[in-house]
C-alpha cells in the first residue's frame, strides 16, 4: 500500500521536489534547446517540459521560466503544444506582459489545418485570462464559431463565456450572444448546441441584473419553441448535455395538461438511463410538471420509485448516497408510497455509516401497520451490531416507530428486552459504550412512557433496577431522574435515590440534569411528602444558590409557588397527565417544501433550502427564480454571515436526537444548554414557563417582600432563606450604549465564534407588520433603542435582519438575528452575547423595543 517515500531513480515523477536550484537548471537547459532544430530536439524538449509541468503540479512556482517556455514553444509536436498550452494557461495571469509573446503562436495555431490543433489553440487562447489581450481574442473566436468542424465550434462557444468573464463589454460588443443563439437553434452538432445553451444561460443570467433586454432573452430560453426544439433532439445529446436540457425543462411551465403528458411521454425512457444524473434530472422534471395535478403527481412518485431504487443499489457508495438523499426527501413527503419497499432500506453490513443513517430514517418513516413487525425485527438485529453509533441509532429508530403508534405491544416488549440485556453490562460495569447504549435506551423509555402511561408498571420494574450511579450521560441521567420523579409512588426507594443525588448537587455539571432534579424532587414531594421533605429543602437551597440562571429561576419559582399555596403548586408541577400524541417535527413543512422545489440540487443533500447555506452571489447561474433572501440590501456582512450560521446550524443538526427535538417544543429553546424543559404536560408547561418568566423579571422588586411572606414553608423545608435571598443575583437593569460601533468583519467573526445563547419565537403586532412595509423604518426604530442594524434583507413575506448592541459602560456586545414572516406575523430571534448571563435581559429589552414598533 504505502509507497516508499523516495524514488530517486524516477526523475520525471514529482515526488521529490528540490526547489530553486532545479528551476535555474531547467532554465539553462531550455535556453539551449530554444533555437535548436536538431532531430532529437523535440524529445529532449518533451522531457524538459514534463519536468517543468511536474514541478508546477506539485506547487513549485516555475513562472520565472515563462519566457524560455514561450521561446521553446515553436514546434509542430502536438504533445509539446499541449504541455505548453497548459503551462501558459496557468501562468499567463501573473505574467501579462510575457503572455503577449504567446498570442502570436496561438493565433497562428488557430488557423492550423488540423481541427484538433485549432481547437486546442483556441481553448488555450481563451484561457489566458489577461484583460489587456482581449482584443486578440475576438477575431479567432469569431472564425471559430463559424468553423466547419464541430470540435472547434464547441471550444469556441465555451471560449465566448470565458471572454465574457474577462471583459463583458468586449463580448457583447462583438454580438457573440446573438451568434450563440443562432448556433443553438441551428447547429447540427448537439454538443455545440448544449454548450451554447450553457453559455447563454451563464451570460444572460449575469447580464440580466443590469439589462432588461438580457432578462427577456433569458426568459426566451424557457419558451415553448426552444424547449420543444431541445426536447425533440434530446436523444442525440450526450448524457451531460441531457442533464443541462432537463434542468432547463424543469423550469418550463406548460400551458395545458396535454402538453405536460407529451413531455412526460417523451422523457419517460430517460428514467432508464445508465447515468444517475440524467435519471434524477428527469425525476425533477416529472415532479415539477405535475405539482398542480395531485393524482398524477402521485403516479409520478410510483413511476420514479423503481428507477431511483435501482440507482441506489447499482452505483458506488458516493452515488448511492446522493440518490438516497433524494429518496429520503420523497419518502418523507409520501411515506405510504414506499411502505411496501421497506426492504430496500435495510442496511448492509459494510455500508458507510452515513448511508446507514439515512436508511434508518427512511425505515422509521415508512413503518405502518403491516410492516412494523418486520422493520422492528430488522432494527433489533442492528442493535447488536459491532458498529456502536449505528446500534444506538437503530434503538432510537425503534423508539420513534413506537411513537408512531403501530404495534406498540411488541415494540415496548423489545425495548424492555434491550434494557434487561443492557442491565447485564451495567452491573458488570463493562464498557463505556455499553453504558452509552443503555443510556440511549433510557431516553427512549422516557419518551415512551410519556406517550403510553399504561406501560409504566412494566417499565418501572426494570428501570428501578438501574442504579443511577452507572449512568453518566446527562441526557440519560435526566431521563432517569424524570422517571424517578414521575413514578415515585411505585418505586419504593425513589426519595432516597433523589436525596443522594441532591447531596451531590455540586458534582452535577449539567444544568439540564439539575433542572430535572428540581422538578423530580418537587413531584416526589407531592406524592410522598414525609420522605422527600428534607431532600426538597436541600434541593431548593442548592437551586437558589446555583450560578446557572435557569436553575436559579426555577428554584425560585418553585419556592414562591410553595409559599403561595401548596395545592396550586401541585397542580402546576403535577397536573393530570395526558399522553403525548405527536412530537413536534424538527423541520417546518415550509422548509421541506422549499427543499423539494430544489430537487436535484445540493439543498437535498444538506437537507436545507439553498438560501440557508449559499451566498446570493453564488446561488447558481442557473437560478431563474430567486424569490427569497436577497440579503444584500444594506451591507455585505449579512450575506457572509449566513455561511457562519450554516456551519453552526449543521452542528445542531448533527446533535439533534429525538429528545432534543421535542424539548424544543417546550420552551422554544433550541436544545441548547439553556433549554428549560419541564415535562409536565402540555397545558401546565406553557403556564409554568409563563409564570417562570414573570417571576424571573419581577424578582428585583419581589425579593423585597419575600422575607416577610416566607413563614411556614421555610421552617418546613428547613430553609434558611437568607441564603436564598442573598444568592439572588438581581438582574441589573440593562442599559445599552447608544453609540455602539461594530464593523461587519468583527460582526461576522463574533457571530461565528459565539455560541447561541438564546433563541425565541414570538408574534408581532399587526401595526408592526404594517410598518415593515416602509423600508428602514424598523432600522430607525431600533436605533432609537440603541440597537443597531448591520445587515438586512429579504423580500415579502420573509425578512431577515442582523442587529448588534453594546452594553453601556462595558465592552460586552450582543448580536441578534431577527427573522420576520410578515404574512404570519411570526418572528424569531437568535441572540449571541459576550456576556451570556445578561442575554435573557437583553432579549426582553429587544422584544419590548420591537413590540413598540409601529405603535409610536
Amino acid at each position, binding site marked *: 500500500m*504505502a509507497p516508499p517515500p523516495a524514488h530517486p531513480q524516477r526523475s520525471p515523477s514529482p515526488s521529490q521536489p528540490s526547489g530553486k536550484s532545479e528551476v535555474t537548471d531547467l532554465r539553462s537547459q531550455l535556453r539551449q534547446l530554444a533555437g535548436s532544430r536538431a532531430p532529437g530536439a523535440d524529445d529532449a524538449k518533451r522531457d524538459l517540459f514534463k519536468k517543468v*509541468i511536474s514541478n508546477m503540479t506539485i506547487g513549485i512556482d516555475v513562472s520565472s521560466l515563462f519566457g524560455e517556455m514561450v521561446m521553446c514553444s515553436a514546434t509542430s509536436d502536438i*504533445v509539446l503544444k499541449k504541455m505548453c498550452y497548459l503551462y501558459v494557461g496557468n501562468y499567463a495571469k501573473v505574467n501579462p506582459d510575457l503572455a503577449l509573446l504567446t498570442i502570436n503562436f496561438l493565433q497562428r495555431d488557430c488557423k492550423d489545418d488540423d481541427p*484538433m490543433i485549432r481547437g486546442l489553440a483556441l481553448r488555450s487562447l481563451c484561457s489566458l485570462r489577461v484583460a489587456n489581450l482581449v482584443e486578440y481574442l475576438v477575431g479567432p473566436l469569431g472564425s471559430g464559431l463559424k468553423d466547419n468542424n464541430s470540435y472547434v465550434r464547441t471550444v469556441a462557444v465555451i471560449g465566448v463565456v470565458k471572454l465574457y*468573464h474577462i471583459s463583458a463589454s468586449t463580448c457583447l460588443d462583438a454580438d457573440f450572444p446573438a451568434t450563440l443563439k443562432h448556433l443553438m437553434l441551428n447547429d447540427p452538432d448537439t454538443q455545440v448546441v448544449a454548450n451554447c445553451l*450553457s453559455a447563454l444561460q451563464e451570460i444572460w443570467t449575469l447580464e440580466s441584473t443590469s439589462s432588461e433586454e438580457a432578462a427577456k432573452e433569458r426568459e426566451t430560453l424557457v419558451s415553448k419553441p426552444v424547449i420543444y426544439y431541445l426536447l425533440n433532439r434530446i436523444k442525440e445529446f450526450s448524457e451531460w448535455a441531457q442533464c443541462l436540457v432537463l434542468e432547463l425543462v424543469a423550469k418550463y411551465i406548460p400551458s395545458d395538461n396535454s402538453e405536460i403528458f407529451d413531455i412526460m411521454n417523451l422523457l*419517460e425512457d430517460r428514467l432508464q438511463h445508465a447515468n444517475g444524473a440524467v435519471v434524477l434530472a428527469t425525476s425533477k422534471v416529472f415532479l415539477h410538471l405535475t405539482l398542480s395535478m395531485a393524482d398524477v403527481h402521485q403516479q409520478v412518485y410510483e413511476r420514479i420509485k423503481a428507477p431511483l431504487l435501482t440507482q441506489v443499489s*447499482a452505483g458506488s457508495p458516493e452515488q448511492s448516497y446522493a440518490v438516497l438523499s433524494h429518496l429520503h426527501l420523497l419518502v418523507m413527503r409520501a411515506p405510504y408510497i414506499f411502505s411496501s419497499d421497506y426492504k430496500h432500506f435495510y442496511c448492509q453490513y*459494510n455500508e458507510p455509516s452515513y448511508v446507514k443513517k439515512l436508511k434508518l430514517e427512511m425505515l422509521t418513516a415508512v413503518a405502518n401497520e403491516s410492516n412494523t413487525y418486520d422493520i422492528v425485527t430488522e432494527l433489533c438485529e442492528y442493535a447488536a451490531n459491532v458498529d456502536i453509533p449505528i446500534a444506538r441509532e437503530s434503538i432510537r429508530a425503534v423508539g420513534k416507530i413506537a411513537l408512531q403508534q403501530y404495534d406498540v405491544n411488541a415494540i415496548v416488549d423489545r425495548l424492555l428486552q434491550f434494557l434487561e440485556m443492557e442491565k447485564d453490562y451495567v452491573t458488570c460495569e463493562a464498557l463505556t459504550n455499553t453504558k452509552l447504549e443503555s443510556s440511549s435506551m433510557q431516553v427512549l423509555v422516557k419518551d415512551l412512557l410519556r406517550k403510553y402511561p399504561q406501560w409504566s408498571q412494566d417499565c418501572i420494574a426494570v428501570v428501578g433496577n438501574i442504579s443511577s450511579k452507572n449512568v453518566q450521560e446527562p441526557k440519560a441521567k435526566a431521563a432517569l431522574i424524570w422517571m424517578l420523579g414521575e413514578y415515585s409512588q411505585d418505586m419504593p426507594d425513589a426519595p432516597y435515590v433523589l436525596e443522594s443525588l441532591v447531596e451531590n448537587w455540586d458534582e452535577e455539571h449539567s444544568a439540564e440534569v439539575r433542572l430535572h432534579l428540581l422538578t423530580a424532587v418537587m413531584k416526589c414531594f407531592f406524592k410522598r411528602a414525609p420522605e422527600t421533605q428534607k431532600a426538597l429543602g436541600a434541593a431548593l437551597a442548592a437551586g437558589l444558590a446555583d450560578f446557572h440562571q435557569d436553575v436559579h429561576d426555577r428554584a425560585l419559582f418553585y419556592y414562591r409557588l410553595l409559599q403561595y399555596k401548596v395545592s396550586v403548586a401541585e397542580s402546576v408541577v403535577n397536573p393530570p397527565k395526558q399522553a403525548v400524541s405527536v412530537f413536534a417535527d424538527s423541520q417546518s413543512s415550509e422548509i421541506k417544501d422549499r427543499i423539494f422545489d430544489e430537487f436535484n440540487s445540493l*439543498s437535498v443533500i444538506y437537507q436545507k433550502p439553498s438560501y440557508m447555506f449559499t451566498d446570493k452571489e453564488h446561488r447558481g447561474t442557473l437560478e431563474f427564480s430567486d424569490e427569497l433572501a436577497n440579503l444584500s440590501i444594506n451591507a455585505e456582512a449579512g450575506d457572509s454571515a449566513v455561511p457562519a450560521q450554516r456551519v453552526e446550524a449543521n452542528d445542531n443538526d448533527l446533535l439533534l436526537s429525538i429528545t432534543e427535538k421535542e424539548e424544543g417544543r417546550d420552551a422554544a429553546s433550541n436544545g441548547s444548554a439553556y433549554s428549560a424543559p419541564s415535562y409536565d404536560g402540555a397545558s401546565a408547561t406553557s403556564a409554568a414557563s409563563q409564570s417562570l418568566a414573570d417571576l424571573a423579571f419581577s424578582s428585583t422588586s419581589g425579593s423585597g417582600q419575600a422575607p416577610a411572606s416566607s413563614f411556614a414553608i421555610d421552617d418546613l423545608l428547613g430553609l434558611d432563606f437568607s441564603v436564598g435571598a442573598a444568592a439572588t443575583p438581581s438582574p441589573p437593569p440593562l442599559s445599552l450604549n447608544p453609540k455602539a460601533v461594530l464593523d461587519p468583519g468583527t460582526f461576522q467573526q463574533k457571530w461565528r465564534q459565539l455560541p447561541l445563547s438564546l433563541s425565541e419565537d414570538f408574534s408581532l403586532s399587526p401595526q408592526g407588520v404594517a410598518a415593515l412595509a416602509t423600508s428602514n423604518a424598523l432600522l430607525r426604530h431600533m436605533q432609537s433603542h440603541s440597537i443597531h442594524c448591520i445587515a438586512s434583507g429579504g423580500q415579502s413575506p420573509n425578512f431577515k435582519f442582523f442587529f448588534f448592541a453594546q452594553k453601556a459602560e462595558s465592552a460586552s456586545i450582543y448580536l441578534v438575528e431577527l427573522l420576520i414572516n410578515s404574512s404570519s406575523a411570526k418572528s424569531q430571534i437568535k441572540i449571541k452575547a459576550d456576556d451570556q448571563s445578561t442575554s435573557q435581559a437583553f432579549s426582553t429589552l429587544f422584544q419590548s423595543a420591537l413590540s413598540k414598533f409601529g405603535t409610536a
Partner: protein
Amino acid sequence: MLQCIFLLSDSGYYSVSYYQFVTFFRIIEPMVLDLWFRHREVMLEKQLTGHRVDRSICGWFWDQSISQGDSFKQLPVIASPTHYLFQVFREGITFLACTQVEMPPLMAIEFLCRVADVLNDYLGGLNEDLIKDNFIIVYELLDEMIDNGFPLTTELNILQEMIAPPNIVSKVLSVVTGTSSNVSDTLPGATSSCVPWRTADTKYAQNEVYVDLVEEMDATINRDGALMKCEVYGEVQVNSHITGLPDLTLSFTNPSILDQVRFHPCVRFRPWESHQILSFVPPDGQFKLMSYRVRKLKSTPIYVKPQLTSDGGTCRLNVMVGSRNDHGKTIDSVTVQFQLPSCILSADLTSNHGTVSILADKTCTWNIGRIPKDKAPSMSGTMVLETGLERLHVFPTFRVGFKMMGVALSGLQIDKLDLKTVPYRFYKGFRAVTRAGEFEVRS
C-alpha cells in the same frame, strides 16, 4: 458548475516509521500521529474556470478528515467555508471537485466516478505512481472531459481516439516508427456522427461479438437462519468487433424475471417496452449493455451457519459452510470474513479445510477455496472476552464470498443474438459467471 478538480493521494502511512512509532509511543494521540505520518499530497490540480481555487482548500479538507475521523472521510458532499466539495475515493486517491454554485450533486459525483473509471481504463489501474507517471495524459484527458466546469464527453471510445492510451503497444510502436506522440492526428469521427458512441468506419477482418452475463448475488440471512433478502444484480457486458454500423438485437428466454433495468445509451427504448428485445447499435469494443436486478430469489447456492455461545468470559464459535448446489457447478474461491467484536481479547480458531487468518484490526478471514465434495468445511474455536465481561453482547456479521463459473444464478437465459443491416457472418460467444456481492450472514 465545477470550478476545480484536485487529485489527492492519501495512500496510508509511511509504513515503517509509522508502525515503529506506534509501538514505541502508544501514549501519543493517534490523531497527532496521523498528522505526522500520513502520506498526503496534491498530485494534480486542474482549474476549470476563471475563479481560481486555491490549493489551501485541500489543506482544509485534510484537516477536516483528520478531525472528523472516518465517517467524515467518506461523506461525498461537504461544505467548506468557501466552497462545496465533492469527493470520490478510489484506491488511495481522492478525486476532489470544488464549486461555489448550486448544482445537481449527482452530476458532480457521477462525473468524478466517470473520471476515475476512465483513468482506470487508460492507465490500466489506479494508483499514485501510475497517475504521477502519466500526469500529462491525465491533464489531456481532463481537458477533453470537462471545459469551463461543464462535462463534455466521458465516452471512453471517443476519448481513446483523441488521446491514445499509454499501452505497451504504443510504446513499442513509438520506438519503431519514431513518432512518439500519443495524440492521434485525426479527430474522432464520432464527434460529428449522429451515433455519438461509435465511429462511422470501423473495419475488422474477423467479426465477433461476445456477450457475458456477470452477476452478483446479494443476500442477507438473519440470526434465525431465515433468508431475509436474496437478489441478483447483473450486467450484460458486450465486447463487439464488427465492421461498419451494425444493428444488433438480443433477446432473452425469460425477460419477465428482470426487475429494474438500466441501459447503455445505445439501446432503443421502444422495442424493449413492447417486446422485451434489446435493439442497439453497439459501441466498438467492450461496454456495459445493460444492468438489471432480479429480486425475491428463493435460495442461495451456499449455506453458512455460524453458532456463537458464550459463558463465563469465553465464547465458542463454530461456523459450518456447505454447498446447496443444484446447478451441478462447483463453487470456487469461497471465503468467510468477519470482524471480531472489540471486546474480544484473543481468539483461537481452526478449520478442517482452508486457512484462517486474523489481522491486527481484528478482521478474521477464512479462506476455503473450492468446497470439497466429501466433507463440509467447518471452522471452530474459542475466543476470550475482556475481563469482567461474562457474555458476548455484540455479534459479528459474516460476509461470504464465492464464485461460480458458467452459471447465472438469476436464471436469466439469452435466447438469441441477431445482426441486422450488415450482411456479415460473425462469431457469437456467450459466457456467464456469478459472484457473491453483499452476501452476509448475521449471527
